[in-house]
């Protein structure tokens, strides 16, 4: 960390870099590419759903002579779409990219606590994602038992499932190391005066997310090891006795339990959804405070709600398992905890809404995405309530209703927040500005088409259309009346894809645009804006490491000559 002036080779500076900002960008670029790829997989699936057994345009040749998407491949696309979006896309972007880049800056640190470990985490993520990609090329194709990989199906599935498991082990380890880094950084490297209750909410969300990842991921790694043993060493951890496959009785020892996988999987996968949403809450909070020119309403309530949310997230997981034959006592337990966990989410959304009241609102692109997040997440959250109630869930489980619910929270929810973050922090990372017109077009069209895709899913789900059906429900009489919605959703999906072109073009032309030389174009109060250049200095971030005197959202402080007061401004 010493010499400022030694010349670094390209490899050291940009590839093996231990600088958290470079690593953040590495995570950012890789994850955005994976998000795009995951989106393309879905666009192909939606063609099959809209026009069953029609040849897929452009890429149909990949699926054989007829160009029609075979059902096994549909299953692969489905499983990989979920896996890629969650583990290769959203979490690395929300936690790996934004977390790495901005946590040290916002707390006044010169880097993360363990820079080399940070680089190792990124490269493990990269290798893990390559392994996942390899799955597409092995005999039988990529994993095809859902992103949830339930046994016994996943146990007897094609080779791609083994590749998935190996990829997951790599990705989980990367995540664990990243979590340790964020936790130690926030606890140990806060600048002088940066007390816990002066932290920007973004840092709080990253901190809580890191704790969730640290404690929740390892049981899935354990489950992964067990399934690898089942598939490679012939054990029967998840295989019940007397299983018959294609008319033949299996010869393995048996005595295992598919439910064991479900418990271990969901022990992670439930906290995982809070991992998906918490960074989004953090980003949206930063942007709302900045663009209302007033402090966040209920900072303390926000912090306590998020901590409580994190804790509760560990005891709700079996609401994903209501129909597995659970006894009524344990079902009642999980239903109760699930209802309770909806409360902090409401508190959080309320504080964000109340923060708008009386604000001097600037409707720039980041703010539009942040504002759009609120009702979209609201819909996602509210539609979760019937799923959390065991009786209603009996009807809705494994239908399109579930898909609609979780996509609302992640797609026009988290992903909107991530777009907001990209537009907001682009000037800090590059010293350049994005094009507002393209940004607004990106927002408006995305907003419309997101709803076009996911709102009809509730209708189909309530009608009883199951998820993961290659033919979109065609064979079922109860789906007949709502089948037309498949085309509506697919067209919306493709148009949503086209709308992303505004974003891609914006990024390209802005990256090649002129440097504005502005340090703090949004007139924000937090340290990354007030005390660093744009972009921040290569080694060490700060000319002078700041001391913190104030809270994170001191906007329009009475008596001040400006409408914002930096955290580092002396009292």
């Amino acid at each position, binding site marked *: 960390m010493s010499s400022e002036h030694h010349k670094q080779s390209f490899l050291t500076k940009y590839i093996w870099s231990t600088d958290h900002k470079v690593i953040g960008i590495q995570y950012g670029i890789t994850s955005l590419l994976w998000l795009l790829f995951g989106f393309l997989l879905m666009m192909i699936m939606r063609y099959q759903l809209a026009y069953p057994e029609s040849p897929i345009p452009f890429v149909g040749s990949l699926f054989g002579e007829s160009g029609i998407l075979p059902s096994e491949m549909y299953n692969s696309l489905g499983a990989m779409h979920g896996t890629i979006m969650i583990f290769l896309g959203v979490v690395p972007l929300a936690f790996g990219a934004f977390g790495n880049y901005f946590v040290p800056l916002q707390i006044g640190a010169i880097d993360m606590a363990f820079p080399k470990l940070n680089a190792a985490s990124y490269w493990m993520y990269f290798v893990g994602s390559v392994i996942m990609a390899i799955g597409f090329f092995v005999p039988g194709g990529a994993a095809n038992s859902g992103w949830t990989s339930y046994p016994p199906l996943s146990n007897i599935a094609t080779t791609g499932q083994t590749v998935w498991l190996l990829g997951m082990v790599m990705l989980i380890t990367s995540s664990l190391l990243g979590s340790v880094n964020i936790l130690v950084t926030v*606890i140990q490297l806060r600048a002088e005066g940066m007390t816990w209750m002066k932290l920007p909410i973004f840092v709080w969300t990253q901190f809580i997310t890191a*704790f969730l990842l640290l*404690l*929740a991921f390892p*049981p899935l790694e354990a489950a992964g090891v067990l399934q690898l043993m089942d598939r490679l060493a012939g054990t029967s951890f998840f295989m019940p006795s007397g299983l018959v496959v294609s008319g033949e009785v299996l010869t393995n020892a048996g005595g295992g*339990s598919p*439910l*064991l996988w479900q*418990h*271990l999987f969901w*022990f992670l996968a439930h906290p995982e959804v809070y991992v998906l949403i918490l960074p989004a809450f953090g980003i949206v909070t930063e942007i709302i405070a900045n663009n209302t020119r007033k402090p966040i309403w209920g900072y303390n309530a926000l912090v306590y709600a998020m901590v409580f949310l994190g804790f509760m997230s*560990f*005891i709700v997981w*079996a609401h994903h398992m209501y129909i597995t*034959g*659970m*006894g*009524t*006592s*344990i079902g009642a*337990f999980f239903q109760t905890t699930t209802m309770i966990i909806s409360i902090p989410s409401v508190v959080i959304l309320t504080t964000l809404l109340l923060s708008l009241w009386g604000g001097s609102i600037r409707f720039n692109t980041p703010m539009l995405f942040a504002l759009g997040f609120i009702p979209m997440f609201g819909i996602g959250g509210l539609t979760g309530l019937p799923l959390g109630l065991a009786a209603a869930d009996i009807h809705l489980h494994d239908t399109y209703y579930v898909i609609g619910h979780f996509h609302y929270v992640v797609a026009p929810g988290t992903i909107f927040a991530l777009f907001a973050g990209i537009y907001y922090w682009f000037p800090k990372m590059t010293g350049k500005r994005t094009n507002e017109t393209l940004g607004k077009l990106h927002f408006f069209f995305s907003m419309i088409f997101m709803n076009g895709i996911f709102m009809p899913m509730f209708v189909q789900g309530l009608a009883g259309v199951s998820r993961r059906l290659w033919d979109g429900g065609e064979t079922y009489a109860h789906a007949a009346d709502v089948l037309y919605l498949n085309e509506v959703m697919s067209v919306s999906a493709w148009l949503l894809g086209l709308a992303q072109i505004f974003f891609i073009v914006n990024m390209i032309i802005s990256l090649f645009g002129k440097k504005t030389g502005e340090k703090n174009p949004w007139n924000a109060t937090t340290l990354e804006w007030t005390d660093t250049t744009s972009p921040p200095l290569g080694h060490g971030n700060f000319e002078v490491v700041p001391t913190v005197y104030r809270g994170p959202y001191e906007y329009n402080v009475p008596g001040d000559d400006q409408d914002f007061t930096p955290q580092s401004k002396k009292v």
Partner: protein
Amino acid sequence: MSELTPEQVKNHIKTYVLVFVSLAFLTIVTVGISYLEVSVGMGITLALIVASIKGSLVACYFMHLIDEKVTIYWTLIATVVAFLILIFVPLSAILDHTKI
């Protein structure tokens, strides 16, 4: 632990030897207990008690937990809670499972 004086370290060493002897003894105890004719439930309980004592000795003295800082305690408390949830909740689920 960077602030320990050589005197304190020498005292700690005495403790380490004591703990080692206890651990060796408790190992023999736990093997001995396994030969007793007790119910499965009692067997599990006794084994867990002895293992917990041994584990506590390792954690408190070899790992210096006994005079560690509050931050570490909070981390471990959160971990122990998560661990207990992971152990007992699936067990409760399987015990409460619908009998066909």
